[in-house]
């Protein structure tokens, strides 16, 4: 990367040499003798007419501000330049103004009118900048002006200005908290904003102004979830943290059932369950029992919105921004089912490679997590190994994590590691290691003796600190089983001669006193030595000497009576009143005098009571009641403005509050956008300036919407698959419920009324089709005509025109009356509607017609396509009923500056070239001016791909809509076709990427032919998948409809015998077959869906092109299961 390094060098060089003038000015300014003089100087420069002088002066002033020097007396001179033309001067003046306005309120008002003018500027960036500075000026008088400006900006056209408005909200709030109510209104409005640019900033404002108004989030919850991945990183952090809190108030604990299992299984519990947690567990158990009872009553089902949040945040674990990763990690920790929390471990471990500050914070959080969920980090044990080069604070945190992770299986490895740590030069770290060993020893019974022996060896360590720490830890360990270790106690007694660290000496003395019966010989001697050095000891040691003396007096008064007296006397005159007090107290207690009260009888009980062993536990225990990743968690204290993480609710609040009431038109447009993204933009919405910053949705949501829509779509479509059915099934959740409602409302009547009608109609249609099939069957049996037909449909590529002609004739000859009306109807309808956005029309206006349409729109129409091709060829601009087709967005209204373009795969043969897929585009000019000469340019394609451009649209008047058809030969690949869409003024980069299902055209095969062809496409060319059909997708229509929606295939009529006799009930487990050919190469694509009991089914795809096959399997699987 030579070029880059050269670039850097150049920059590096410049920094030392560059800008000598400005660079040295601020520094040299300090040398000038008098401040006043210099300021006069600057004032003069500011008053001059030359921009360069002004700039120079401003730079020096800003440099003063930067260094913390007071420059407030220049205010009048500076503020005059607020309207300066030079951008840099202006910016620097703004910097100055914001810094000093609070001090010079009156003068600052002079500048306000400039900003007010700026707020009306046609350029969005100037509007934004004016609002930014205006809102930063902390002058109370202008609060009303700010309020007005914010309100106005909140409904600005430009999302950037709206973002600035969101930023201004907390500024105004901090200036005047009384404005809260009005500001909340603005926040509410901005929360509803659909752009990624605004989302982060407004949630930030929400968190600062009204974090308690969680109800404002309901309606925006799903949108926020879906936008999340496209929001900028900082906004993501804020949104995720807020949503964590939200989810805790709205959803049920996903671990209710898990905690039950855990209790029963207990495998994970052995560590904690061992000793110390026993009592706490009792409480917990009770709680769990309650929860269990509840859970038994009602099995836990995760709210789909809860799932949505988890799913949409997960990819962000891959963010480069540590704060985002941490935010997602804490979200998973607090919200995810136990089984899923594990995914965050890897990402957190990755952060350990980052800067040491990041490590510090991450390790703190990991330490807390390891206490609750040890298993999660166990595989990464070695990533927490300590290097001698780590800073001490990192070492100690890693040690904490390692200790938390220790269990029976890994303890030996961990202890071996600890062994090396003890030799470290960093003594604080060594001390911490010894503590850690102590904790491992108390927690894991098996290694207690090993640890103790190791620690005893440390007693002979050269370093006093190490010895001292060991003594303290050994003391704690010995308390657990003193009788076994009297030799250790003896050993420690000997140490009193050498060890000088007070804490260690105190510990030893306490030990000897406590267990003096184990070392009856040594104890008095130790006391003797201590009595000798008593006056020179530290206070804590003195106290322990007193304790020791008292205990010995009680157990062995013969030998120690005098010594005790002596020590008590010494203590009596000690400087420290604590020690004097203690001595007085002990004397009264143990030395029997005639006045001594009842207490002295109990002296033995008091002093020699059995003390419980101390519990060595992690300082990170229970830290998780703070939201992880927060400042409060890090400090283990509630920071100002911290919002408590609420407990899970007992029962879930009404989930319907998150349903969004969307007016029809928004709903549709947003839906289309989403769809477009799903297919075209795998990750984010913006590959080439289309779809704009305004609208973006997470592509992750498709499965969600799929699953939701599955039930939804078929719910409303099962009986009366209205024309919207297909698109409905693709609906976003957020609109779904609502849509359903409205639709239901609209449809209910129609459906009910037409149900009978419809079913009869259906019957009729079946008849029709069967008749047709019959015919074709008979044809195939006897007729050569049929042969030519199938041939024609097979090899369309040869010469579609003539073929079409032939077919036309043939069709005329055949004249299938039943099929034609249906076809006509659809084409007619489509022609009527092509001027408008079809998708914008809900089925409501013509419920009776559209259901029919949809019912067969795919299966029937495609079935018939082989026959009616000519019609399509004659009318290249026509479209199949687009209500059944997904339309995708090519250019969003905002990006396109008023021009929006949508496209759909019309599934009609493209007449100029049969190898091309027809793409129907619909241009809508919603701007105020006419758009001229719409055409394509600069087509970028993968090798082999070809494009037939649509004819130039010369004029698209404002508010008008036009359609055009273009053809693309995708070469049977799903590579996108990129090109520029040009108007007379602008060019837009756009790209069209086909779903795999659009790369084929239907062919008509009989069942026998199908089976024959299938027989030739076995082995590698066959892909079989088992699946469970979605509950709402088990009837024939639903399956057929879903498959034909997913791919441009035609249904193969099954079992002719059944076909001819409608009254015969359909077989219990029907097999559905579909056939098609890829558009370019004409390879056969055969799809078989064989249904079994209870919704089980098997999907088989036979296709020569394995790539197409695999992709198609995925798509169809998705269509059928969700």
């Amino acid at each position: 990367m030579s070029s880059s390094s050269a670039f850097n060098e150049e920059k590096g060089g410049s920094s030392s040499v560059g800008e000598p003038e400005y660079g040295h000015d601020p520094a040299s300014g300090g040398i000038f003798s008098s401040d006043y003089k210099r300021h006069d100087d600057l004032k003069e420069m500011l008053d001059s007419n030359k921009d360069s002088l002004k700039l120079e002066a401003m730079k020096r002033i800003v440099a003063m501000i930067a260094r913390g020097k007071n420059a407030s007396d220049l205010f009048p001179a500076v503020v005059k330049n607020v309207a300066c033309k030079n951008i840099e001067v202006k910016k620097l003046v703004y910097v100055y103004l914001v810094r000093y306005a609070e001090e010079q309120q009156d003068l600052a008002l002079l500048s306000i009118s400039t900003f007010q003018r700026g707020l009306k500027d046609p350029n969005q960036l100037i509007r934004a900048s004016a609002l930014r500075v205006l809102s930063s000026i902390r002058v109370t008088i202008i609060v009303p002006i700010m309020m007005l400006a914010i309100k106005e900006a909140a409904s600005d056209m430009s999302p950037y200005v709206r973002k600035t408005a969101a930023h201004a909200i907390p500024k105004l709030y901090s200036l005047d908290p009384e404005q809260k109510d009005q500001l909340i209104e603005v926040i509410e409005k901005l929360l509803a904003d659909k752009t990624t640019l605004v989302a982060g900033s407004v949630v930030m404002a929400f968190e600062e102004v009204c974090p308690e108004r969680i109800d404002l989030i309901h309606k925006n919850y799903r949108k926020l979830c879906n936008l999340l991945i496209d929001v900028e990183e900082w906004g993501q952090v804020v949104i995720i943290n807020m949503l964590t809190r939200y989810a805790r108030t709205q959803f049920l604990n996903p671990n209710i059932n898990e905690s039950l299992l855990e209790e029963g299984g207990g495998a994970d519990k052995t560590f904690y369950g061992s000793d110390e947690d026993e009592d706490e567990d009792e409480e917990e158990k009770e709680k769990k029992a309650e929860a269990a009872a509840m859970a038994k009553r009602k099995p836990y089902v995760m709210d789909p919105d809860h799932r949505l949040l988890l799913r949409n945040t997960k990819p962000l674990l891959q963010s480069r921004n540590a704060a985002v990763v941490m935010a997602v990690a804490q979200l998973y920790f607090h919200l995810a089912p136990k089984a899923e929390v594990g995914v965050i471990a890897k990402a957190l471990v990755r952060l350990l490679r980052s800067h040491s500050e990041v490590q510090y914070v991450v390790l703190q959080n990991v330490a807390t997590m390891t206490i609750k969920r040890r298993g999660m980090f166990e595989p990464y044990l070695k990533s927490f190994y300590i290097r001698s080069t780590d800073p001490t604070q990192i070492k100690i945190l890693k040690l904490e994590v390692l200790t938390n992770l220790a269990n029976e299986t890994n303890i030996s490895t961990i202890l071996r590691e600890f062994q090396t740590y003890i030799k470290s030069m960093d003594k604080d770290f060594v001390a911490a290691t010894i503590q850690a060993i102590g904790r491992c020893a108390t927690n894991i019974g098996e290694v207690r003796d090993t640890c103790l022996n190791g620690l005893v060896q440390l007693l002979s360590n050269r370093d006093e600190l190490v010895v001292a720490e060991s003594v303290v830890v050994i003391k704690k360990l010995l308390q657990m089983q003193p009788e076994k270790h009297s030799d250790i106690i003896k050993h420690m007694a000997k140490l009193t001669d050498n060890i000088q660290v007070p804490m260690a000496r105190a510990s030893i003395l306490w030990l000897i006193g406590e267990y003096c019966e184990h070392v009856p010989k040594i104890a008095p001697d130790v006391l003797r030595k201590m009595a000798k050095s008593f006056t020179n000891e530290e206070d804590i040691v003195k106290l322990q000497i007193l304790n020791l003396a008292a205990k010995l007096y009680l157990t062995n008064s013969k030998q120690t009576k005098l010594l005790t007296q002596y020590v008590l006397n010494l203590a009596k005159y000690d400087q420290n009143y604590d020690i004097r007090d203690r001595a007085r107290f002990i004397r009264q207690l143990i030395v029997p005098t005639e006045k001594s009260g009842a207490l002295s009888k109990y002296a033995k009980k008091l002093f020699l009571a059995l003390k419980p062993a101390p519990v060595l536990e992690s300082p990170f225990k229970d830290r998780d009641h703070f939201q992880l990743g927060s400042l409060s968690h890090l400090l283990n204290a509630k920071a100002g403005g911290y919002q408590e993480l609420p407990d899970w609710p007992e029962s879930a609040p009404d989930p319907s509050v998150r349903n969004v009431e969307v007016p029809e038109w928004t709903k549709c447009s947003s839906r289309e956008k989403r769809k477009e993204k799903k297919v075209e933009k795998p990750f984010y919405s913006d590959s080439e300036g289309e779809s704009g910053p305004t609208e973006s949705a997470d592509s992750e949501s498709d499965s969600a919407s799929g699953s939701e829509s599955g039930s939804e779509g078929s719910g409303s479509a099962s009986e009366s698959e209205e024309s919207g059915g297909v698109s409905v099934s693709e609906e976003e959740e957020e609109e779904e419920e609502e849509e359903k409602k409205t639709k239901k409302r609209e449809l209910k009547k129609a459906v009910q009324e037409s149900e009978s009608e419809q079913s009869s109609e259906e019957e009729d249609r079946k008849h029709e089709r069967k008749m047709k099939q019959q015919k074709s069957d008979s044809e195939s049996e006897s007729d050569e005509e049929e042969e030519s037909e199938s041939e024609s449909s097979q090899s369309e590529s040869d010469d579609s025109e003539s073929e079409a002609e032939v077919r036309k004739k043939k069709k005329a000859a055949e004249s299938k009356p039943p099929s034609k009306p249906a076809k006509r109807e659809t084409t007619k309808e489509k022609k009527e509607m092509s001027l408008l956005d079809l998708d914008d029309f809900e089925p409501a206006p013509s419920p009776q017609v559209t259901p029919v349409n949809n019912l067969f729109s795919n299966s029937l129409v495609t079935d018939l396509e082989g026959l009616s091709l000519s019609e399509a060829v004659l009318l290249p601009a026509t479209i199949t009923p687009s209500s059944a087709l997904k339309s995708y967005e090519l250019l969003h209204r905002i990006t396109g500056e008023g021009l929006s373009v949508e496209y759909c795969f019309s599934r009609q043969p493209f007449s100029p070239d049969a190898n091309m897929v027809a793409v129907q585009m619909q241009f809508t000019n919603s701007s105020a001016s006419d758009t001229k000469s719409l055409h394509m340019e600069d087509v970028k394609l993968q090798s082999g791909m070809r494009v037939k451009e649509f004819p130039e649209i010369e004029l698209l008047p404002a508010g008008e809509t036009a359609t055009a058809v273009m053809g693309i030969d995708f070469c049977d690949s799903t590579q996108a076709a990129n090109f520029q869409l040009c108007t007379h003024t602008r060019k837009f980069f756009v790209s069209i990427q086909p779903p795999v299902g659009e790369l084929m055209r239907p062919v008509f095969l009989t069942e026998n032919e199908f089976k024959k062809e299938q027989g030739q496409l076995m082995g590698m060319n066959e892909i079989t998948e088992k699946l469970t059909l979605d509950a709402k997708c088990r009837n024939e229509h639903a399956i057929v409809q879903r498959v034909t929606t997913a791919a441009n295939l035609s249904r193969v009529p099954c079992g002719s015998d059944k076909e001819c006799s409608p009254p015969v009930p359909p077989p219990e487990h029907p097999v559905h077959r579909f056939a098609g050919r890829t558009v370019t190469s004409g390879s056969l694509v055969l799809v078989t869906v064989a249904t079994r009991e209870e919704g089980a089914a098997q999907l088989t795809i036979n296709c020569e092109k394995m790539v197409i096959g695999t992709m198609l399997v995925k798509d169809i699987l998705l269509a059928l299961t969700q």
Partner: protein
Amino acid sequence: MINSLFLISHSGDIFLEKHWKSVISRSVCDYFLEAKEKAGDPENVAPVLQTPHHYLISIYRGKLFFLSVTQTEVPPLFVIEFLHRVADTFQDYFGDCSEVVIKENTVTVYELLEEMLDNGFPLATESNVLKEMIRPPTILRSVVNTLTGGSNVGGTLPTGQLSNVPWRRAGVKYTNNEAYFDVIEEIDAILDKSGTTVFAEIQGVVEACVKLTGMPDLTLSFMNPRLLDDVSFHPCVRFKRWESERVLSFIPPDGNFRLMSYHVSSQNLVAIPVYVKQNISFLETGSCGRLDITIGPKQTMGKSVENLTVTIPMPKSVLSVNLTATQGTYTFDLTTKVVLWDVGKLNPQKLPNLRGSISIQTGSPKPEENPSINIGLQIQQLAISAGLKVSRLDMYGEKYKPFKGVKYVTKAGKFQVRT
């Protein structure tokens, strides 16, 4: 979120302050300076400190402390990450992030800080957006500016901020269109005394230098993406494509950036390129010690090991060392007590060796622990994870043919030998 920022030099001099909300007196830094005194080593200053009215969150970069002051709850990583981003930006603009450079460019620094935060909330942190608003100083520009009174503030408005590809500025033009990718893999390892691997893993990054005209849409695919265990991406990378196809699809930022970093699945055994034979001992008496280190190639996949360095932080009681190196040169820093041996290229025929005596302060006890040895090395044209190869780079959206290049380098990351 972030109220104020103070830049504090290594010695404790507060040389720059910037406030985004009300002014907070710089006396708040006293708490920090106190903690800094206590900690001794600047690396040991706790990144988060609590004072009666404020919270101080700081980072240490380039011998500078970036200290931010907040008053309310804020995710600490949010601030830390942001401060590092600020330091990165300075690095990017001035080629260095040091006290001298920042003092020299105070005004530019101030302008940058002004744009990066609004009311304490990050506004523009993408280098491409910032560069559109405030041009980085160059020699030529500073000369021109001096003559014409021009400025380093962009005349055009920062449209990048409005774009949905905020990391890429519009209207990029190059005469030579080129895209270079460096796959850099670092071996993190801890070896014990006997040379056994205690812990080893491979961390990699793909650094990119893309200078392409217009709005190219790139797709980078790997030969064996399954090797990648954990990845993180620049925001430009489309997650979805990676999830489904294991290719990196992105519209690149202009210039240098880190495309992705990855971790190679820990199931794979890590090849350790060199072995170290060492013997460091301190004598019980006579206050001296011996040192003998030999380095040899182990698993280098036939490539030569270059830029070999050995760093040994000696115990504090060491006074001086008297060593001879068969290859390269060594230095001993008297204040930090670090022996740095710059070996250069490893010659498998004649293994480099460093030996000699260490003298210890008389009277001080024999050091408890032997110092650990830190190895630095570089192997060109090799990705140690064996198999991670860029298979192809495709460009869509633009017509020209770019010049493409991929380079592989293996480096030692945190490679430590315990003794």
